[in-house]
C-alpha cells in the first residue's frame, strides 16, 4: 500500500470530559439484617439481581455442592418448576461460590421482579436438597471439575493459589472429585441452615425500577427470611514470600502458562489509585509496555494481562500470559525486565496520562449497563463500599502524579517481590528458566 503521497492528517482532540454521575439509588437494612440496595437505570425493561452472602471458612466440597444444588427444589417446587417459573417472567437464577461469598445472580423482565423475589425467598428459606437431584448434580460437578483439571489455565491458577496462600483458606478453591462424591443431602441442609442467612448479606437490584419501590418489594418478599446461622471471619491473607520459580511440569504442552503474583492493596488503601495506574502502564491493558513488548514486538503470546484482584482477606496483583514453549525463557526475561524498568524509572508523563484516561473512561463504561452496574455495586458492597466510592476513586485517579506512580511501582512491582509459577513442558523449558531464576520443579497435580 503506498502511503507516501498522502499528506498527514491530525488526530482530532477529545471533547471535554463528562463528570461521573452516580445514578439514583436507595438502601435499606431489613429487620433480619439483610441490606438491600436498589439502583435506577431504566435503559431496558429489565432488572438485575445479585445476592451476596458471606461464606468465609465454608467446607470446600460442601460449599461447591451447595451452590450446585441450591436451586434443585423447595417444599413447594421441583427444580424444573423453579426454572420454569423464573423463565415465565423472563428470568433466571444461578448460584456460585468462592472463599468469600455465595452469590445468587440473575436477571429478568422488570414486570417479573415480584415473582423473582418470591421464588428467591422460597429457595432461601425452603431449599430441600432432594436426594435424586443432589445425586445428579454431584456427578455433574465431578465431571466439571475433571474438565477444569484438564485446562492449563485452571492448573496454572491452582498452582499459583497454593504457592501464594500456603495455609490460608484461599490456597485451595476447587474441591477434589472424591471430596465432592462424599457430600450427602443432609450435610447440605445443615450447611444451608448454618450459612444461608440474611445477617451481613447484601441484595442488589439494578434496572428499570423506582428504588424505593424495589426496596419495598424486596422487604415484602424477604423480611421473613431468617435463620440463626453464623458468619466466619477469614484471617488476613499472608504476605507474598518470594522464592524459587515454581515450574509445574505438564509434558507435551505446546505453550507455557506464566503466572506472576505481586503485592497489592485493597480499594480503600491510599496507594490503590496509583497502583492501579502503575499496573496499567506495566501490563493492565493492551497499550501497556508488557503487551507492546511480548506481543506486538516479539509475537511470543496472544493475550497477556495483569490485574489487581481484590478479595475480602487481601489483594494481589496477578500477571498472566500463555507463551510459546520455545520462547518461555525469553518471555519471562522480558517480563522481569518490564517490571524492573517500571520499579526503577518513573513512567513518562504521556504514558501516565494515557493510563489515567483509560482508568477514568472504563469507570464510565462499567456503569453504563444494568449488568455492569449491578456487578460493580455488589462487588463494592462485599467490601463495605457504596457506589459513591466511584466518584472518590475517580478523583484520586485524576490526582495521581508521576512521582506517586513511580513510588508505588517501586514498592509493589519490583521483580524481587514476585512469586512466579510456570506451567509447561519442563524438559523443554527448564534450562532457559534456570538461566534466569532459581527453579523448583514439581509434577502437575490438580
Amino acid at each position: 500500500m503506498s502511503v507516501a503521497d498522502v499528506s498527514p492528517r491530525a488526530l482530532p482532540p477529545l471533547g471535554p470530559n463528562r463528570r461521573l454521575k452516580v445514578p439514583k439509588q436507595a438502601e435499606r437494612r431489613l429487620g433480619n439484617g439483610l441490606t438491600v440496595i436498589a439502583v435506577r437505570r431504566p435503559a431496558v425493561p429489565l432488572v438485575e439481581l445479585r445476592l451476596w452472602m458471606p461464606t468465609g471458612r465454608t467446607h470446600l466440597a460442601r460449599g461447591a455442592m451447595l451452590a450446585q444444588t441450591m436451586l434443585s427444589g423447595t417444599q413447594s417446587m421441583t427444580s424444573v418448576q423453579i426454572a420454569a417459573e423464573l423463565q415465565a417472567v423472563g428470568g433466571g437464577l444461578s448460584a456460585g461460590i468462592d472463599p468469600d461469598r455465595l452469590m445468587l445472580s440473575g436477571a429478568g423482565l422488570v414486570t417479573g421482579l415480584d415473582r423473582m423475589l418470591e421464588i428467591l425467598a422460597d429457595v432461601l428459606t425452603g431449599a430441600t436438597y432432594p436426594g435424586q437431584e443432589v445425586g445428579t448434580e454431584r456427578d455433574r460437578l465431578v465431571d466439571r471439575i475433571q474438565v477444569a483439571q484438564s485446562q492449563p489455565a485452571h492448573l496454572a491458577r491452582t498452582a499459583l493459589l497454593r504457592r501464594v496462600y500456603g495455609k490460608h483458606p484461599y490456597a485451595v478453591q476447587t474441591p477434589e472429585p472424591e471430596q465432592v462424591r462424599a457430600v450427602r443431602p443432609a450435610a447440605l441442609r445443615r450447611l444451608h441452615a448454618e450459612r444461608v442467612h440474611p445477617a451481613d448479606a447484601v441484595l442488589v437490584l439494578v434496572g428499570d425500577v423506582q428504588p424505593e419501590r424495589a426496596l419495598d418489594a424486596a422487604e415484602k418478599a424477604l423480611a421473613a427470611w431468617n435463620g440463626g446461622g453464623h458468619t466466619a471471619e477469614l484471617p488476613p491473607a499472608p504476605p507474598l514470600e518470594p522464592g524459587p520459580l515454581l515450574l509445574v511440569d505438564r509434558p507435551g504442552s505446546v505453550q507455557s502458562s506464566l503466572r506472576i503474583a505481586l503485592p497489592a492493596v485493597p480499594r480503600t488503601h491510599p496507594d490503590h489509585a496509583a497502583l492501579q495506574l502503575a499496573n496499567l502502564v506495566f501490563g493492565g491493558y493492551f497499550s501497556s509496555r508488557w503487551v507492546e513488548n511480548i506481543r506486538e514486538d516479539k509475537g511470543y503470546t496472544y493475550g497477556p494481562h495483569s490485574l489487581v484482584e481484590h478479595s475480602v482477606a487481601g489483594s494481589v496483583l496477578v500477571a498472566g500470559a500463555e507463551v510459546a514453549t520455545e520462547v518461555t525463557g525469553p518471555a519471562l526475561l522480558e517480563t522481569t525486565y518490564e517490571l524492573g524498568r517500571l520499579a526503577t524509572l518513573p513512567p513518562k508523563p504521556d504514558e501516565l496520562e494515557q493510563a489515567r484516561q483509560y482508568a477514568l473512561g472504563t469507570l464510565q463504561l462499567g456503569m453504563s449497563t444494568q449488568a455492569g452496574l449491578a456487578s460493580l455495586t455488589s462487588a463494592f458492597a462485599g467490601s463495605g463500599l457504596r457506589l459513591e466510592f466511584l466518584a472518590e476513586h475517580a478523583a484520586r485517579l485524576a490526582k495521581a502524579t508521576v512521582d506517586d506512580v513511580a513510588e508505588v511501582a517501586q514498592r509493589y512491582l519490583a521483580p524481587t517481590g514476585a512469586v512466579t509459577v510456570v506451567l509447561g513442558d519442563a524438559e523443554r523449558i527448564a534450562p532457559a528458566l534456570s538461566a534466569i531464576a532459581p527453579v523448583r520443579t514439581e509434577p502437575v497435580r490438580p
Partner: protein
Amino acid sequence: MAARRSRIPATKYPVERFTLGNGLRVVLTPDRSAPVIGVAVVYDVGIRSEPEGRTGFAHLFEHLMFQGSENLEKLAHFRHVQGAGGTFNGSTHHDYTDYYETLPSNALERALFLEADRMRGPRLTEENLRNQVDVVKEEIRVNVLNRPYGGFPWLTLPPVMFDTFPNAHDGYGSFDDLESATVDDAADFFRRYYASGNAVLAVSGDVDVAEATALIERHFGDVPARPAPDRPDFAEPDLTAERRSSYTDALAPLPAVASAWRVPDPVTDFAGYLPYVVLAEVLTDGDASRLVERLVQRDRAVTSLGGYVGFMGDPFDVRDPTALLLQAHLPPGGDVDKVLRTVDEELDRLATDGPAAGELARTQARMATHLLRDTDAVLGRALRMAVLEQQRGEPGLLNDLPRLVGEVTDEQVRAAAATLRPERRASIEVIAGGAR
C-alpha cells in the same frame, strides 16, 4: 404449573440511516442516557470468502487492520482508543469481519478518525505480517491446540456437514497456510473486500445526530469509493443421509458430541427461519427445557447441553447456509448413540404433540430478556445494527426482534422440530483421550 404469559416488551431505539457518496452505509442510533458511545465498522467479508490455500486469512487480516494505517504508526490505534478511555476489538465471522470501540462520548471524533484512516489503507508491512502470524499461532494454541475441546464444535463440525471449501474449511487456518501468506495477498484482500461500498458504520449512544452526521462526512467522505465485490453463492444441497464422524482429543477427559441440521435461509426466509431459533431455546434453555430436563436431569446421559443456531452462537448475524446445533458433554463412558437416539425421540415427541401448555411462552419471555440484555450495552446495539444493515438493509429489526420471537407459534415450533430428522443430521463425536 401455572402458564403465566409475560407481555414481551420492545425497545424504541431510534434509527437514522444514510449512505455516503463513496457507498459507505451509516446507521446512527442515539441514546443520551449515559455518556458513552459504541462505534462499529463491519466489512462484508468473512471466513467463507478466503481463497483456497489461504485458510485463516480473513482472521489474520483482521489482526493486520490494527497494525497502523495511513496516518498512524503501529501501536497508535490501541493507544489512541485506550488513551481516550475506551476499549476496542475486532472479530472474524463466517460472513463478516467487525472492528469496534466503546468510548466515553467525548471521543466520538477520534474514533471516527481512527476507523476512517484504516478504511483508507492499513500499513501492510512484512514485519507486521510476520509478527501477527506469530501472534495468531499463539491464539490458535491457546484456544485450540493446548486445551481440551479446542475448536469443538465450531471448527470440527462444518467439515462433516459441508463439502465445499468455503463452508467446510478451518477458519482459524493451518500453520502452513498462515506462514506462507504474503504482503501482496494482504494488499489484494484489502483492495477487493475492504471497499467503502462493502462496509457499514454504526454509531450508538450519546451522540447528536446532526453533529455525528457532519463528523462522519468529514472523516469518511473522502475515503476513495470502491464498490462491493460480488458475493458468491455459498449454497450447498441439504444432507439426504446421516453423517457421523469422530476424533480423539488427547486432552479431553470426557466424551462429547455435537449435531447439526440445516435451517432455512436466515435472510431471504426470515419467517421460516425464526421458529428454529426459538426451537433451539425450547430444547436447551435452562433446567426446564426439553432436552436438559430429559438428558441431564432424568436420564443423566449428559452432564451439560447447549443448543443454538449459527456455528458461532448468534442466530441474527449469519447468512445461508447455516444450521441448528446441539452439543453435549457426556459422563465417563457415556453412550453417544443413546444420546442421539434420545434427542430423536424428544424431537419426535415435540413434532407430534407440540409444546406443552406454557412451554413456548416462557421460552419466549426468557429470549426477550437475553435480547434486551445484549442491546443494553451501546456496543451490542451498534454491532447488531451494523450487521442487520449489512445483511438485510434493516437495522431497525433490532427493536422488533423480541416481539417477532414472541409471535412464533406452537405450530411453527412443532413443524420445525419435525424437520430435524436423523437423515438430515451431521454429527461429530469427541473421543476422550485424556481420561485418567
